[in-house]
């Protein structure tokens, strides 16, 4: 059926009265997500769109609305504070959409997270969606279709590309997780792969990576030993000039590690079907299914 989010998810939106927070809270409501509360410090007592109560703090929102997931749209300068507030309030799933959070802030967030039960997705990510049940994030809902294929990706729009190819070919998705492109972030490729491997309702999954870091290699090594499900993959940035920053601080090639070819080799070695071009991600998954 799905991982992490479903019909029982009760969503809080941090930064709900801001521009993009409001837009995307509405987008989630329209999709059918159960948006139960919002937080904007100083706006406690207001009601968003005549439907969603707004609180000053996450603790109040948790107590009053029983939220078990949060979507964060707070500006970069205050986003780390918001993530930590959600973690301290015991919110089970924290989805940080905000782009441009300083690396040092994320480093501190990660030490906080290490001592909690919360799961962080992002930041700088499109969010997570279980088609037909719950959308948390900025992805266009209509490209998805309920089904049994899992999607994991570091990049936002490249995820949409993959999902669209799957849907067009008639393959629905169990859950799609955008893990985000920042160098220091929450859920990793490996953790997402573990969730999909354990999920009885996911038949196969696709992993979309990027140059930089070693998460794809780590996921590949784990999949090789532990996962019997069909897996497909694509790595973006094979033609990026070495040493140049390509938008994600993450996409830096360092010391011979993290190159597209190193990642492709590790994935292939794990029996994963690689898409040659980003136009063939859906086709690679279908090929993996056999």
């Amino acid at each position, binding site marked *: 059926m799905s991982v992490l989010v479903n019909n029982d998810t009760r969503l809080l939106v941090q930064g709900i009265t801001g521009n993009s927070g409001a837009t995307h809270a509405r987008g989630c409501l329209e999709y059918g997500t159960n948006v139960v509360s919002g937080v904007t410090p100083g706006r406690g007592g207001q009601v968003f769109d005549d439907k969603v109560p707004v609180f000053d703090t996450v603790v109040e929102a948790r107590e009053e609305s029983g939220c078990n997931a949060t979507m964060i749209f707070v500006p970069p300068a205050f986003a780390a504070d918001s993530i930590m507030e959600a973690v301290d309030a015991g919110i089970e799933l924290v989805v940080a959409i905000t782009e441009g959070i300083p*690396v040092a802030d994320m480093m501190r967030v990660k030490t906080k997270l290490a001592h909690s039960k919360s799961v962080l997705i992002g930041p700088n990510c499109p969010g997570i969606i279980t088609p037909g049940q719950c959308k948390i994030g*900025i992805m266009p809902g209509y*490209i998805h279709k309920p089904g049994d294929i899992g999607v994991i990706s570091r*990049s936002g729009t*490249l995820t949409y590309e993959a999902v669209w190819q799957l849907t067009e070919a008639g393959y629905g998705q169990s859950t799609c997780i955008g893990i985000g492109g920042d160098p220091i972030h929450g859920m990793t490729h490996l953790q997402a792969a573990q969730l999909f491997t354990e999920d009885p309702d996911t038949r196969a999954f696709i992993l979309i990576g990027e140059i930089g870091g070693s998460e794809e290699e780590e996921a590949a090594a784990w999949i090789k030993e532990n996962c019997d499900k069909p897996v497909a993959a694509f790595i973006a*940035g094979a033609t990026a000039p070495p040493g140049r*920053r390509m938008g994600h601080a993450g996409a830096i090639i360092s010391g011979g590690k993290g190159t597209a070819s190193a990642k492709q080799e590790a994935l292939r070695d794990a029996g994963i079907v690689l898409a040659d071009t*980003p136009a063939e991600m859906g086709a690679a998954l279908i090929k993996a299914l056999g």
Partner: protein
Amino acid sequence: MNIHEYQAKELFDKYGVATPAGGVAETVNQVIEVARELGTDTVVVKAQIHAGGRGKGTFKSGFQGGVHLCDSPEKAGEIAGKMLGEVLVTHQSGEEGKLVNKVLVAASVDIDKEFYFAILMDRETERAVIVASSEGGVDIEDVAENTPEKLIRVPIHPTLGLQGYQARTIAKQIGFTSEQMRPAAKLFAAAYKLFMATDCSMVEINPLVLTTDGEVQALDAKFGFDDNALFRHPEIAALRDTDEEDPREVAASKFDLNYIGLDGNIACMVNGAGLAMATMDIIKHYGGDPANFLDVGGGATEEQVREAFRILAGDPKVEAILVNIFGGIMQCDVIAQGIINAAEEIEMNLPLIVRLEGTNVAEGRKLLEESGINLITASDLGDAAKKAVESVA
């Protein structure tokens, strides 16, 4: 963001990282003046560019070396005269080299031993990591490759920070003696404080030296800053030198566009870094050559799209423009309106291949159709790449 060595030296002075006295100069007369004020027998004149390997670099004039030891203020002036206004090419500057507008004039020190010291933000450990070596002054990549055992790496706890014992241990491990250990550890602590206080992504000191007087000093500094944190460091943001950057990238950054110039002839405009990289990959796959990487970001406005076009169309190497948008935050009708506005303002006689998908795609396609601008529509990413490559064939 990067800064010049003379600016790094000012930060070192402020945070107490020991470094030889010196000053920056833009003319030969200023060089002589600074050298006289230093009052040392010899001074070092160093070309200020955003690239390493200056010492072994060559000026396009044929003059050798961007770092020179000079035994009088007059000699310093003479050497600086061969650097200022000239283009220095190093193994890191690219073939086109970098124009030298300023030189650093520093007191020369007598070096007993050279070391390597750096602090980097490391994604693997999710910490700041100190990298240090007894082998300074040479290319650290060679050390990493040939004698990795001579490089030590110490991750620093994000909230506890660098502890005194860690700094002392690093000093001993790279070969400082008992007497030298404390001044070395003091320099490490000051550098770490500076690194954290200014949101650096990298501070590299190569060489870190032990002088014949037993002092520990930083003779060179390369800094990288986290662009995402510049908002809280206006004094650092003010150190940006746009002369050191690709003018196309500078123009793009004024409009918050993420642009990197490349050498091909197919310009691309894409939303999202991952999709932008993937678009470059698929252009190459079909035998084409991308002219750039351009991510217009999640929530681009009409104005940003128009400026993006201006930059792409203004690049003389560009022979076709490929627009690939998968709207999430970004709405396809906004992109379409931006394209129409740009096409009306800028005379574009280039083939324009457009692939739109996602939020408000129907409205976007309709706007483009009704505008009457001449463009090639593509049904999917593969189709778009093929059509773009064909259009320049």
